[in-house]
């Protein structure tokens, strides 16, 4: 196994620190881009639509079968 000098150890610790910083920045950017794209708002709206579709379908089925 190769020996690591003090300078090399320092370089590696810098790399680890940079990776942590980059990772945190990436996570933050992705979260922000998803928020900008309305990801969570879309979810809530799509769930509400699902329920509305159910009610509307019941009514349409009743009319289609002449029960209305």
């Amino acid at each position: 196994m190769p020996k690591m000098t003090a300078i090399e150890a320092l370089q590696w610790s810098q790399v680890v620190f940079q990776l942590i910083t980059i990772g945190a920045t990436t996570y933050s950017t992705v979260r922000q881009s998803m928020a900008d794209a309305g990801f969570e708002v879309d979810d809530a709206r799509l769930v509400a639509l699902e329920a509305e579709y159910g009610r509307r379908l019941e009514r349409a089925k009743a009319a289609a079968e002449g029960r209305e």
Partner: protein
Amino acid sequence: MRTPRPSVVPILALLVALVFLATACAAKRHQFAVASQTVAASLFAIQDAENAAYAAGKLTSAQHQRFNQELVVALTLGREFNTVVREWQPGAPVPTQLAALRASLFKLSTELLIGLPPDVQIQLQATLNAAYDAVLAVLLAGGK
């Protein structure tokens, strides 16, 4: 023997690529979600307009029944599309329900409007066009 000099460039490039990919996927899902909301609003407006026309005595029971039989198909497809959009994963193709929904809307706007009073036809046609346009826009874009 010295350890190789560490480099963060490849990892940085990979992370940048991941950010672009995540942003593109979120935008595409949003496009589908907006289309689903437009389609739903149009389908609901069609149902309300048709019910109002029937309540006002402008449609016969047979016309009302026949129209609702196709509306059940359109609403079912609309709900399936909505469910697919909710569960849509990056990389998945454009939901197939869209093509069937387009055909159903076309049938509603051609076959089933014929014979209805002109004012009802105009009202229903306008809402059907909005739904049709929303579906077509996503299909033509191919989810790009």
